């Protein structure tokens, strides 16, 4: 009862200060929205990886795979069954179709162990019969059925809710046809309880692999999700800045009232308790709004995220959101937690509030100086921490620690820097109005510094990310030119088809060279790698984007003694030039020397290039469907047209189309980053707006004397606007070097850790100007309403500035 009276009294404050209430709620809601939006994206993607990993019990069942990671003959399966092993065969692979590839999983329902679960083919024997007998049945997620239904090259589709998107589960007989792998198997599911060692005859070629709780996708996409999380967290922090300043302001305004309440007999415990209750209530409301907005953000970004994950990692993530109730609860909890964190200082001050106002309140300048000194010390400590993480740290988390520390230290230093600039300005000023302007700016700094810090962070990250993306774009474009040096690339349906095409091409005079691009998939120290065979040709020698090379690398590779290794692989496995790497081939381990390292942007898997003859000698099963052609550039288009006409089953692309495709994938990869970036800037804008709005009430007291002394309201409004713009401009200037530092951390530390490649930085001054403009526009918009209000303020309101002074 008593608590209710106190709560009502506290809440009455917001009724009289709706803008502050809105600030608090909006800040919390925005922080929650961005954070939970990003979490939703991650959760959605991770759920589909887990689903993919759990298909056929991959998360609980051990599997038998070939030691070289390739497909192996059906006879091995039969031999194991005949030795009494309860294994069930699986063929899997990507089926290339006109509208993208589909993952095909072929199973044998007759031997599928119950633990493989999740396939509801067993539901009704009728469906099982259809699944097993022509024309068979392909199971797929509902959205995949909707997309692929009626396709002529696939069996009739049936829905199965638990499957990841773009995945077909079919009978093994259908799968070997769709994947063109007759008599081959990808792996065997091992029923639980089998602990024997593999029979000696098979032990050399096959091995047992423990169930993976996290699939390759989980590991490969880790960095992508960490990136998203980092951005989400940054936005959350920027949002909390707003909350912190709103709560702090409300506390200052309510301090006399809190004292009165205490004097009227409200104990410190009850007062603090009720304030916590009030805050939690507000945070619940804001949190709910935040998660709803977060859902909307996630839903609108998900298609891009899904596209980048697919383009980058081949991960199949559904384009529509479905979230567990836990996500909603977590979103609201983060809102409450964030609010309590941001309010901790204010609540502590309420708890320890002296009942009597200090006899000699500290002058604002003194308080500001003390605050700045404290912040400076904190900034130095955090900066030192960031430096330590840079020097001693390793891994992506350390990379983000460097970036976080850098940003935080810079933000904390910002008020000191601005105060310094303003006091320098004040020293040089002669005219009283100008002097007042500088001094007043300094005083205002305390109230605005949090918003300016938020703006600084948003701008710096914008500069950093912008520089990184554009540097990458420029590097990538140049790299594509080197990498896609051949004019035409083609893929036949099978090896015989490729042979036929090759014969046809020999009769075409414009084809200068026909280069095989044959490859196998394998695993190297438990990471997936692609091993490519290439024919020694000037196309490679002249163009290939080598980063580091031994002398005569090309000759040694052509001789089959050495290999080229992609940058990612070299970094991941810590390979140096001249070192030996052992490739697992069906003919046994094959040690090759690392002769050169080349850049291979955008590829999550490691890559090794060896001479094609060496490849086919050791991997007779190599995929021989792909070819690159050197033709006169002007003849390329006609050749592609002829090829398509002569061989309808052959995919032929000319270089330009391929480059366009690569660039499109590239652009989508950064769509989310850029979108989150823009949102962060918007949040900083909101922070600035709300700070100016709440300050504008207090400002009346400070401006009223000037008005009384004859400065027009119009002039005062213009001055206020000018000051906001000047502070924003100063902040933007400070953001520039910070942004470049962020760009450096991103390209030289985070990219290397996350993706395995290092990028050169290019500078884009045009971009900086744009951002400066954006900062000014943000400040302008934020200052517009307070200035307008001031300009329209009635003299009575200004007079109250005197009478209300307390």
């Amino acid at each position, binding site marked *: 009862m008593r608590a209710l009276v106190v709560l009502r*009294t506290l809440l009455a404050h917001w009724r009289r200060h709706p803008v502050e209430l809105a600030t608090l709620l909006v800040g919390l809601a925005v922080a929650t929205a961005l954070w939970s939006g990003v979490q939703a994206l991650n959760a959605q993607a991770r759920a589909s990886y887990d689903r993919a990993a759990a298909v056929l019990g991959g998360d609980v069942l051990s599997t038998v795979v070939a030691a070289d990671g390739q497909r192996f003959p059906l006879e091995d399966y039969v031999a194991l069954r005949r030795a009494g092993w309860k294994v069930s065969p699986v063929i899997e692979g990507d089926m290339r179709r006109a509208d993208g590839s589909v993952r095909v999983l072929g199973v044998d329902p007759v031997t599928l162990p119950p633990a493989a679960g999740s396939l509801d083919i067993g539901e009704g024997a009728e469906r099982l019969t259809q699944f097993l007998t022509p024309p068979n049945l392909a199971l797929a997620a509902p959205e995949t059925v909707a997309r692929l239904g009626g396709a002529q090259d696939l069996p009739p589709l049936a829905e199965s809710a638990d499957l990841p998107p773009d995945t077909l589960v079919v009978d093994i007989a259908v799968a070997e046809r769709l994947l063109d792998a007759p008599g081959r198997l990808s792996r065997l599911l091992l029923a639980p309880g089998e602990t024997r060692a593999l029979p000696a005859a098979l032990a050399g070629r096959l091995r047992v692999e423990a169930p993976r709780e996290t699939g390759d996708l989980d590991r490969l996409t880790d960095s992508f999700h960490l990136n998203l999380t980092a951005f989400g967290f940054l936005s959350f922090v920027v949002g909390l800045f707003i909350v912190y300043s709103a709560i702090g302001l409300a506390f200052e305004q309510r301090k006399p009232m809190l004292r009165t309440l*205490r*004097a009227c007999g*409200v104990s410190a415990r009850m007062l603090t308790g009720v304030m916590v209750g009030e805050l939690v209530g507000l945070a619940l409301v804001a949190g709910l709004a935040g998660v709803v907005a977060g859902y909307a953000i996630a839903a609108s970004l998900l298609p891009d995220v899904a596209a980048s994950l697919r383009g980058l990692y081949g991960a199949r993530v559904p384009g529509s959101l479905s979230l567990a109730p836990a996500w909603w609860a977590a979103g609201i909890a983060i809102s409450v937690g964030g609010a309590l964190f941001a309010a901790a200082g204010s609540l502590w001050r309420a708890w320890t509030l002296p*009942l*009597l106002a200090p006899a000699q309140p500290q002058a604002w300048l003194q308080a500001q100086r003390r605050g700045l000194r404290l912040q400076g010390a904190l900034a130095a400590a955090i900066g030192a921490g960031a430096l330590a993480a840079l020097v001693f740290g390793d891994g992506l988390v350390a990379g983000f620690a460097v970036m976080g520390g850098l940003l935080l230290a810079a933000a904390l230093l910002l008020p000191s820097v601005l105060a310094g600039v303003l006091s320098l300005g004040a020293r040089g000023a002669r005219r009283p109005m100008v002097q007042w302007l500088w001094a007043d700016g300094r005083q205002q700094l305390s109230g605005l510094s949090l918003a300016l810090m938020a703006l600084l962070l948003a701008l710096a990250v914008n500069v950093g990310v912008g520089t990184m993306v554009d540097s990458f774009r420029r590097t990538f474009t140049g790299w594509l030119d080197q990498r896609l040096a051949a004019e035409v690339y083609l893929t036949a349906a099978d090896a015989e088809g490729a042979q036929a095409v090759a014969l046809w091409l020999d009769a075409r005079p414009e084809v200068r060279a026909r280069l095989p691009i044959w490859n196998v998939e394998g695993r190297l120290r438990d990471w997936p790698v692609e091993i490519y065979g290439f024919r020694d040709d000037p196309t490679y020698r002249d163009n290939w984007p080598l980063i580091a090379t031994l002398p005569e690398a090309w000759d040694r590779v052509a001789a089959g003694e050495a290999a080229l290794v992609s940058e990612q692989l070299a970094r991941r496995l810590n390979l140096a030039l001249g070192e030996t790497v052992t490739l697992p081939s069906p003919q046994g381990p094959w040690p090759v020397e690392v002769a050169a390292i080349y850049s291979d942007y955008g590829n999550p898997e490691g890559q090794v290039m060896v001479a094609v003859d060496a490849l086919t000698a050791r991997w007779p099963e190599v995929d021989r469907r792909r070819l690159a052609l050197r033709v006169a550039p002007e003849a390329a288009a006609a050749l592609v047209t002829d090829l398509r006409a002569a061989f309808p089953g052959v995919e032929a692309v000319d270089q330009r189309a391929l480059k366009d495709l690569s660039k499109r994938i590239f652009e989508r990869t950064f769509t989310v980053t850029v979108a989150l970036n823009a949102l962060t800037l918007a949040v900083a804008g909101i922070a600035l707006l709300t700070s100016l709005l709440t300050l504008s009430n207090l400002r009346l007291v400070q401006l009223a004397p000037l008005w009384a002394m004859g400065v027009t309201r119009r002039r005062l409004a213009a001055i206020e606007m000018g000051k906001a713009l000047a502070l924003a401009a100063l902040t933007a200037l400070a953001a520039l070097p910070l942004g470049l530092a962020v760009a450096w951390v991103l390209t030289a530390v985070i990219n290397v850790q996350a993706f395995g490649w290092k990028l050169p930085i290019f500078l884009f001054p045009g971009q900086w100007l744009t951002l400066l403009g954006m900062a000014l526009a943000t400040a302008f918009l934020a200052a517009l309403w307070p200035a307008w209000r001031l300009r329209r303020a009635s003299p009575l309101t200004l007079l109250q500035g005197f009478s*209300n002074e*307390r």
Partner: protein
Amino acid sequence: MLDVDAVSKSYATAQGPIEVLRCVSLGLGPGRTLALTGESGSGKSTLLHLIAGLDAVDAGTIRLGGSCVTGLGDAARAALRRTAIGLIFQQFNLIPSLDVAGNLGFQARIGGRHDAAWQEELTERLGLGEVQARFPEQLSGGQQQRVAIGRALAGRPALILADEPTGNLDEATGEAVMALLLELVDASGASLLMVTHSPRLAAMLDARVTLRAGRVA
């Protein structure tokens, strides 16, 4: 009723500790009124704050009714303020977010001593009937102080502590407010301890104690 015994209090400042009260003793019977006078800095307000439990003594005891204020913790002192003490400040200290009626009833409500009839009578006798729905900033100084007096009396506390209640008012308003205060204190049967530097106001009360440099003169 109120018994202040050998209370001392000093404050730490940058220039060293300042002894504000030195072994001050005084007493106040039920229904009696006492003026506490003295020059600025003589320790009047500090003594008032100590009696109200807003601050803690260094030495000595303060008893109010059956309780020993100086021996109580924060929560108990808050409870004592809610139920036994009404405070009136020079700066009124109304709650800006509550209207007049809300302010009047506030302390009585949180002390569980709300009495609608008594509040109505107070409202009427304080002449606040017309402005009940207004907020403090919409009131004149005299009106604000009358609200503060009403708030202090609404819970029928045993003791009213007033700190220069007319200090922020012009002379005529001050006298009217003072008369009203005494009349209502009398009507409610409370005791009154009032800090004032005005001998004329002090003379309106039953007794008078003067502090000089932290001691009873």
